[in-house]
């Protein structure tokens, strides 16, 4: 009844009155009627009238008690959110009556009313207008009432800063209660008010909360400090709370207090680090060896969630030598047997990161973690399995051979949700090799008859991808052709697309395929992609398919009914190709196609038809060379994901990046990058120059990676076909081609660089990093002299970049000072310019910066183009050089490296 009533009200009674009501509230003592304007009065009375009617008919205090939150009926598809104004008004007056009462049993009545207020709040009815009454009723010793009141106040204080002042009093009083529970709860509520001008009231209670002898109060106070920091950072810093937290973290006996200190300090210091050197140092100190061992040695005292926090911290620790690495791994070994998947994955990340430089141990880690991860996949809910499986997916794609014998674990079970099945299909595709392909393809073929059509399609695509990555495709081709015999529309459609791709890579199979494809009636194929594939084959293999011209003619005659421009484009091209091979039979159809194409409303179709027409007019032989050159097998299909991106995702193991299969900068904004932002700035600074020689330099383990399992290059060439089917997420997908990258980067031409130079210089100076204005000291004369005044416009750069081959690709370590100076891309741009290396475009945020540089040989118009990616967390710079004069590119790289190595040096 209530729901229906709300609906009724909200459709007829929409103008907001809350504001007026709260004005009234602000002066609780004054006479109501004297404040009310006429307009408000009339509405007020209207509401009163309705609510009284409701009151007498349906709701009395007695019946409220048993009432659960009202279910807003049929929220979907047209959510008609009840406004519930009359109910709220009604509650308000009832609360008012109880406010001053000391009658026995009044707490029970209050409980019922409070419960109703909270239940409205939950379903989204705005009950902020009873704020004053709630506060007035809060004078009670009943803890259930208190808690409801705290919950309410926390929810609405921000929107009612003036009224919030009313709550300060009773909250401050409760902060001194003798019951630690009340002290804690009140302190939590006090810190959750989120009202900036009330922060002064927080300092006292927080200070004593941190010293409270009860650990519950201390845990709340520690988080309270973090809350205060978010309301007013300066107040928090000025009160020196971070220092107090640091000392608590090191000395408190309660594990949760310690864990909260760690969480709070991580957050505060990484936010402060951008403008305070001291915070940078403090943040760095969290990763010192003694502190890491302090946490790791007592990790079992913490609950599983805090263990995750500690493990996340340990990931960023840079071990001093291999003993250090093994100590940590031995310490954490039993965490891999934990039933909580989050603990296991966090531990796995530590193991993977620690062993990056030790190829064989790294591989052993893969072997070791396989079994625990598989157990987690099968022991949790489908959702938990999915999270673990996504990480296994990442590992499988990185090191397929390690999982090759475990392929049966990735077979789909019939009752699994489709998001799990999809992942498994991708994994099966990745691990297929000579030894298991037969079994895997047999299994996949079973899924092609699956009731779930989407999965059936994915399975067929998987078979196709496996076919494309194998050398011996004989058996697979047979299976694919069998699909065509199933005579299911979607199976045929998917198969045609695959057969087309297969023929592009392995033209030698054309004979078998064409004879089967020729038997398919084009009438049965509706999906544009499949139709396009069939038409492509008709054009490409016109000489082998006797009725190709006639099928094409048929399709061309129905030009008007063909809705897909893609199909029409293919039709034009196929008609052309067919014409060159079998002119007499195709001439008529081609004429119709060109006429229809030129008249087509779709710009691309029109243009292509016109182009074909003109080039035919010019010279038929030229046209043939252009449109139907000799067939060339495609050796590899473009990868949609560069190995660079894959490595980024691997670095962000145990995060959403793995789930979305995208690096975090694509789907998060900077301030929410979480632990990674933290790691980025921190990881780098902790690599101190005096690192012992046991550490393998970054460059070297990169080389090792290529030998073993870290390289992602192999097999990837076929992934391009998948066209990123999983891109259901709304985060923009980063295309890997150069032109779009260029667009994403801020183009800073020579003209623009002057201003950026200026500003970055100021900034650097502020940090006291001492980039001198004078030109950098002349380096020891390099072999190659560069033109200090060279210029190139971005467009020309882009064109050149596309044309030239990569002549050199290298990786350098960037010194810690350089990383520290690289807070914004501009600082490096300015620096490189002083070495006659000019920036064309730059972009990115910490930790990944990307630059395009340009330099010119002195006295000769020979250009060097450089793409430079700097990861400030790994302190690595990867460069790719393209040069007009290949022979001197190494010399240029040396100049570049020298210049880079001086970055950040005074």
């Amino acid at each position: 009844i209530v729901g229906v009533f709300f609906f009724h009200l909200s459709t007829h009674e929409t103008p907001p009155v809350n504001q007026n009501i709260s004005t009234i509230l602000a002066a609780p003592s004054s006479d109501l009627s004297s404040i009310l304007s006429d307009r408000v009065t009339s509405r007020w009375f209207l509401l009163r009238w309705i609510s009284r009617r409701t009151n007498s008919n349906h709701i009395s205090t007695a019946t409220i008690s048993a009432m659960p939150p009202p279910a807003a009926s049929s929220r979907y598809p047209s959510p008609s959110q009840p406004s519930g104004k009359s109910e709220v008004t009604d509650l308000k007056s009832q609360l008012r009556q109880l406010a001053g009462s000391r009658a026995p049993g009044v707490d029970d009545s209050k409980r019922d009313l409070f419960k109703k207020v909270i239940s409205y709040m939950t379903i989204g009815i705005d009950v902020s207008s009873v704020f004053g009454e709630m506060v007035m009723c809060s004078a009670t010793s009943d803890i259930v009432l208190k808690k409801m009141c705290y919950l309410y106040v926390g929810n609405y204080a921000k929107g009612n800063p003036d009224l919030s002042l009313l709550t300060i009093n009773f909250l401050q009083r409760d902060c001194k209660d003798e019951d630690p529970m009340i002290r804690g709860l009140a302190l939590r509520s006090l810190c959750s008010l989120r009202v900036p001008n009330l922060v002064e009231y927080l300092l006292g209670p927080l200070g004593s909360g941190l010293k409270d002898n009860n650990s519950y109060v201390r845990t709340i106070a520690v988080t309270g400090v973090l809350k205060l920091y978010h309301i007013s950072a300066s107040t928090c810093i000025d009160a020196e709370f971070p220092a107090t937290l640091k000392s608590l973290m090191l000395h408190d006996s309660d594990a949760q207090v310690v864990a909260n200190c760690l969480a709070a300090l991580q957050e505060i210091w990484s936010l402060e680090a951008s403008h305070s050197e001291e915070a940078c140092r403090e943040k760095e100190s969290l990763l010192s060896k003694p502190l890491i061992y302090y946490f790791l040695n007592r990790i079992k005292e913490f609950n599983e969630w805090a263990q995750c926090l500690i493990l996340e911290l340990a990931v960023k620790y840079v071990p001093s030598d291999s003993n250090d690495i093994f100590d940590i791994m031995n310490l954490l070994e039993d965490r891999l047997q934990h039933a909580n998947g989050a603990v296991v994955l966090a531990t796995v990340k530590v193991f993977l990161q620690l062993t990056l430089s030790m190829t064989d141990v790294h591989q052993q880690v893969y072997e070791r973690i396989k079994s625990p991860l598989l157990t987690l996949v099968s022991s949790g809910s489908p959702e938990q399995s999915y999270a673990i499986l996504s990480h296994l997916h990442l590992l499988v794609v990185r090191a397929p051979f390690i999982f090759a014998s475990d392929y049966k674990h990735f077979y789909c079970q019939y009752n699994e949700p489709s998001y799990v099945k999809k992942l498994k299909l991708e994994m099966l595709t990745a691990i297929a090799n000579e030894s298991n392909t037969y079994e895997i393809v047999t299994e996949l073929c079973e899924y092609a008859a699956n009731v779930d059509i989407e999965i059936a399609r994915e399975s067929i695509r998987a078979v196709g991808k496996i076919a494309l990555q194998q050398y011996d495709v004989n058996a697979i081709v047979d299976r694919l052709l069998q699909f065509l015999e199933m005579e299911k529309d979607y199976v045929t459609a998917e198969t045609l697309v695959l057969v087309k791709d297969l023929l592009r890579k392995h033209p030698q199979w054309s004979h078998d395929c064409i004879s089967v494809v020729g038997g398919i009636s084009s009438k049965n194929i509706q999906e544009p992609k499949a139709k396009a594939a069939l038409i492509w084959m008709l054009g490409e293999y016109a000489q082998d398919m006797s009725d190709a011209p006639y099928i094409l003619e048929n399709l061309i005659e129905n030009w008007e009914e063909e809705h897909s421009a893609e199909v029409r484009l293919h039709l034009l091209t196929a008609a052309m190709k067919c014409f060159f091979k079998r002119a007499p039979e195709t001439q008529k159809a081609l004429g119709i196609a060109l006429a229809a194409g030129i008249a087509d409303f779709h710009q691309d179709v029109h243009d292509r038809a016109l182009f074909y027409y003109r080039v035919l007019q010019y010279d038929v032989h030229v046209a043939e060379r252009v449109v139907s050159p000799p067939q060339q097998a495609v050796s590899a299909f473009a990868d949609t994901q560069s190995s660079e991106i894959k490595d980024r995702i691997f670095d962000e193991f145990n995060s959403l990046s793995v789930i979305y299969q995208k690096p975090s900068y694509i789907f998060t904004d900077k301030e929410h990058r979480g632990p990674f932002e933290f790691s980025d700035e921190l990881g780098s600074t902790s690599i101190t120059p005096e690192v012992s020689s046991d550490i393998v330099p970054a460059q070297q383990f990169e080389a090792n990676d290529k030998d073993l399992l870290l390289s992602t290059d192999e097999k990837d060439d076929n992934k391009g076909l998948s066209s990123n089917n999983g891109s259901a997420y709304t985060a923009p997908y980063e295309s890997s081609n150069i032109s779009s990258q260029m667009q994403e980067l801020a183009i800073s031409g020579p003209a623009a660089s002057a201003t950026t130079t200026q500003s970055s210089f100021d900034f650097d100076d502020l940090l006291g990093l001492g980039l001198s204005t004078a030109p950098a000291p002349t380096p020891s004369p390099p072999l190659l002299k560069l033109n200090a005044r060279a210029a190139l416009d971005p467009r020309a750069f882009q064109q050149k970049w596309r044309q030239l081959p990569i002549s050199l690709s290298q990786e350098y370590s960037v010194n810690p000072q350089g990383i520290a100076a690289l807070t914004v891309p501009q600082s490096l741009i300015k620096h490189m310019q002083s070495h006659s290396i000019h920036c064309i475009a730059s972009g990115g945020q910490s930790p990944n910066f990307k630059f395009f540089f340009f330099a010119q040989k002195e006295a000769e118009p020979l250009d060097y183009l450089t793409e430079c990616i700097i990861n400030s967390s790994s302190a690595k710079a990867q460069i790719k050089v393209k040069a007009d004069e290949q022979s001197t590119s190494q010399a240029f790289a040396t100049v570049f490296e020298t210049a880079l190595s001086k970055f950040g040096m005074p």
Partner: protein
Amino acid sequence: MMISQLFVLSQRGDNIVFRDYRAEVPKGSTETFFRKVKFWKEDGNAEAPPIFNVDGVNYFHVKVVGLYFVATTRVNVSPSLVLELLQRIARVIKDYLGVLNEDSFRKNFLLVYELLDEVIDFGYVQTTSTEVLKSYVFNEPILIAPARLQPIDPAAIFTQGAKRMPGTAVTKSVLANDPGGRRREEIFVDIIEKISVTFSSNGYILTSEIDGTIQMKSYLSGNPEIRLALNEDLNIGRGGGGVSVYDYRSSSGSGVILDDCNFHESVRLDSFDSDRTLSLVPPDGEFPVMNYRMTQEFRPPFHVNTLIEEAGRLKAEVIIKIRAEFPSDIIANTIAVQMPLPNYTCRASFELEHDAVGQKTDFKESSKMLEWSLKKIVGGAEHTLRAKLTFSQEFHGNITKEAGPVSMTFTIPMYNVSKLQVKYLQIAKKSSSYNPYRWVRYVTQANSYVARI
């Protein structure tokens, strides 16, 4: 970490509880979430994945008894952590409410708020221990009678991966007292095994796996220490290699060989290597003591034989035979057999055995699904179903490619295929008269039990 909001929605999308911890996510997140989940794909078939991103907000959800437990954040957090947490929160709430469903949830939403306040503070997890939370909960649970308990979705137990049996789960709140104000001293240990088997069309076992859990629910007062002894011939570790802590024993030997297992954090393994005993002080509430996975060959409890044959131009016949391969003192219950029929099937008539009791058959026209359910099957028994199909059009090619596979669900109480056993359950004695009730129960369930044709 840093969770921004946590809310629970009903199947229809109503908020049952809603808690905002960090005020970072704009209003309307519950509607955004629900819309996205409801209309994940235009065709409505594909389920929304448990994690997705809309306008920079990451939504995590798990479905428990038809309710959506949702967390939002803008931070790039550990996905496992949030999903584990949501699942754990559901379990903690169940510990307090006794029965978890929409009704009990709505009645006790204030209690749930009390829990949520303590579980997370400013986005950071504080505790999920049912026991620790006890001191912070002041609302009395409003219990609903277990008799009224109607699981929202009977199939939920299989699709949700919940590891408990309907009917035998303990439905008592950790706060509840028995009539007379005394708590009954008792402890429940359930060995639950979910088995997955795929048979090839000629009856061979293609894959088989047991996913087991030893689940405990303790109502013992005073937290006594417990020792749980497993089979002495239990071996762990098979396949794999390298840096495992486990020693490798020959898999040819007799005994139970687990591929791998993991343990609840309260479990101490001091004497596990020597005598296969786990010791622990069980916390309040329900929790898995140990999860294990086993691919060692075992005898599947049911053998399924399916035949589909053309019988004329527009007709075909299906024969499904199931044989129970377990001892006759064991009885399986709630058996359901499903088989997708060719798309152009328009009618199916069934023929059961003459003495069939408690069996039902159905043909679901819309999904073209043959369904056969049996109340119980006694060990050693064999049952047959014959179905005559009528087609709306002539079929081409191979009819076996158009139908199947046959899948089965079942529950077999007091039976476990792995032979893993709890040899004894020892409770540290407080006094000579202290003798709590101990319940050790075994159950085997089908997870994915499929026979191809």
